[in-house]
């Protein structure tokens, strides 16, 4: 019985996740045996080594595709792509954090442990082929993120951000579970493949229940990816969190949530999804516009980046709406590019920020004359800002280009136009940083020292290079993205 059970499960296909859990346990033990107050260094090293192990395991298993655990999870090119991306992002965040967490007064090993566990949750999300696994993945990730946001316990903004994030996250969970219940009731399964087959072959006996279920799950995803009008939590959570965590949250969990979004709505609800077009159309328009308009009024670079990340989620919804391979691959491309430029921008923001213990901070004023003071840093920031705006020859340009051309090809010309207009609006607040850096005089009295860490500089450098390289030669990344989604449809 034992061998039969094991053989049918294809345990080997989730080797990276197994390795990751092993790494988590090892990191906890490292924390436990390290001398008090000196555990972050060893835990960080174990985590980094472990993440390399996870990558190796992922690559080892790159030809062993298929379902595992009786269809609970699906390992395919799509999963592979996101596994690599998410592991890389987590690796980078852990790599750059050591000095920053000392500055932010959160030098505790849980910081790294929670990042690793969040990665585990995200890995589940991207391979979930069953709503149960997806649910558990989302929750594992969310629990870690709540903790990470609230980690700066001495800061009221961190408390409030975490609480708000938590309450709205829990609220979302309610919608999600209820949606799953209704889907289960109308199809008799929580497995995405079964659901797809059911919707395709059987004319469901309870159409309204199925529709209500799809709608509730859509709301849950809208919350998780912070689409308007379900975005309240994200700016507060982003501002309250330690900045490295903000960089993490606006990239990795967003990528994982979109991956799950694509899988659930492209594969699971398949034919039903196209009926959601009008709803998603409005969500996309609102998300792009509202995020932009509020970002315009911010005085803090951190908040500006938070709101602009809402806008970027809106662009991704535009691509999602196409329900085609091209749109999906554009999303993958954009997620990678966005992760690179956003992490880079947040790292610059950390370096420039005046006082980490300040509840607000991250003022535009800190950038006054940076171009003359620290030309290289300012240059890096300029590249990231241009890329976020979408100006060639940066990676951001191609990200937007693929998305809007996919939209036009699928007949969403109006949406593409609105998207381009919004990009034009975003020029204002992104360029404001550049203007501050290059066109304003230095005010030497008010200047605060730059926060330097070797790891941060090296990652910043790599980000700049990647943004430019992809901006000049985007084909290779796009072809990887296309190959990854090809198995999905």
């Amino acid at each position: 019985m034992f061998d039969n059970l094991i053989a049918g499960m294809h345990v080997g296909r989730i080797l990276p996740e197994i390795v990751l859990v092993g790494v988590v346990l090892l990191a906890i033990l490292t924390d436990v045996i390290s001398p008090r107050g000196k555990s972050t260094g060893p835990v960080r090293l174990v985590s980094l080594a472990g993440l390399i192990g996870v990558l190796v395991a992922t690559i080892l298993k790159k030809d062993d595709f298929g379902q595992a655990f009786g269809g609970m999870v699906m390992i395919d090119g799509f999963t592979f792509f996101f596994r690599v991306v998410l592991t890389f992002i987590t690796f980078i965040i852990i790599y750059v954090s050591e000095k920053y967490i000392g500055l932010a007064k959160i030098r505790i090993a849980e910081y790294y442990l929670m990042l690793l566990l969040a990665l585990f949750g995200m890995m589940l999300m991207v391979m979930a082929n069953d709503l149960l696994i997806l649910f558990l993945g989302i929750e594992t990730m969310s629990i870690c993120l709540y903790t990470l946001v609230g980690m700066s316990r001495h800061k009221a903004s961190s408390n409030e951000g975490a609480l708000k994030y938590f309450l709205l996250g829990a609220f979302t969970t309610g919608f999600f579970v209820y949606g799953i219940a209704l889907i289960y009731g109308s199809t008799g399964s929580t497995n995405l493949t079964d659901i797809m087959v059911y919707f395709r072959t059987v004319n469901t006996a309870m159409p309204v229940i199925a529709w209500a279920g799809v709608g509730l799950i859509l709301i849950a995803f809208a919350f998780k990816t912070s689409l308007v009008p379900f975005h309240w939590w994200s700016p507060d959570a982003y501002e309250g969190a330690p900045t490295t965590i903000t960089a993490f949250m606006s990239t990795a969990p967003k990528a994982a949530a979109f991956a799950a979004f694509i899988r659930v709505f492209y594969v699971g609800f398949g034919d039903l999804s196209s009926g959601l077009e009008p709803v998603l159309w409005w969500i996309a328009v609102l998300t792009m516009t509202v995020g932009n308009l509020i970002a315009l009024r911010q005085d803090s670079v951190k908040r500006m980046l938070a709101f602009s990340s809402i806008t970027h989620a809106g662009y991704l919804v535009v691509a999602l709406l196409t329900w085609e391979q091209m749109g999906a691959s554009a999303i993958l491309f954009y997620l990678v590019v966005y992760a690179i430029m956003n992490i880079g921008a947040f790292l610059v923001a950390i370096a420039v920020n005046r006082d980490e213990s300040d509840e607000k901070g991250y003022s535009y004023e800190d950038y006054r004359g940076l171009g003359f003071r620290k030309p290289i840093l300012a240059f890096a920031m300029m590249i990231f800002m241009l890329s976020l705006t979408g100006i060639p020859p940066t990676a951001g340009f191609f990200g937007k280009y693929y998305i809007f051309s996919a939209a036009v090809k699928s007949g969403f010309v109006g949406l593409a136009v609105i998207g381009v207009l919004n990009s034009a609006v975003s020029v204002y607040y992104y360029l404001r940083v550049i203007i501050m850096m290059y066109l304003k005089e230095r005010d030497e009295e008010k200047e605060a020292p730059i926060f330097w860490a070797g790891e941060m500089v090296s990652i910043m450098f790599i980000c700049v290079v990647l943004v430019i390289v992809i901006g000049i030669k985007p084909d290779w990344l796009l072809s990887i993205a296309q190959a990854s989604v090809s198995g999905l449809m």
Partner: protein
Amino acid sequence: MQGVMFIVLALVTLFSALMVITRKDPVSSILYLVLTFFCFAGFYVLLGAQFLAAVQIIVYAGAIAVLFLFVVMMLNLREPEAEEGKELIPIWKPLGYAVGIGVGIVFLSYLASSPGPAIPPLNGGDEIYAMGRADFLGKALFTDFILPFEIAGVLLLAAVLGAVALAKKKRV
């Protein structure tokens, strides 16, 4: 018999659920919440999910609600909610009621429009209630659902780490 039980339980549940969200004093809310959990356990029994009924009481009434009560006692929260201030999701408060009532009415109007299939399915004997027993559930949990089970372990580990990281007084 079951119909009568359902009606009685449903009335108690609705009453106590309304009380949960309308009481000013958190302790009363918690106690009404416990009553609601109890009624839910009753429904689970009616639906043949007896093991889950026990788990419902052990987990919800015996652990989650205790945690709530514990926090209220520990923080000694005796003041009623302030009259002023904005809600969690900053929309006009009556809109909140409208959303709640609207959601309810939408579901209701659809569901009430057709009588719906009988529950339990009419063509079953007593064995249709066997599914909710601990042994049946365990067999499913430890064969088809083995992966979610292990994931739940990791999830609980994350919760332990998170709670300690947030609530531990001295960080070491």
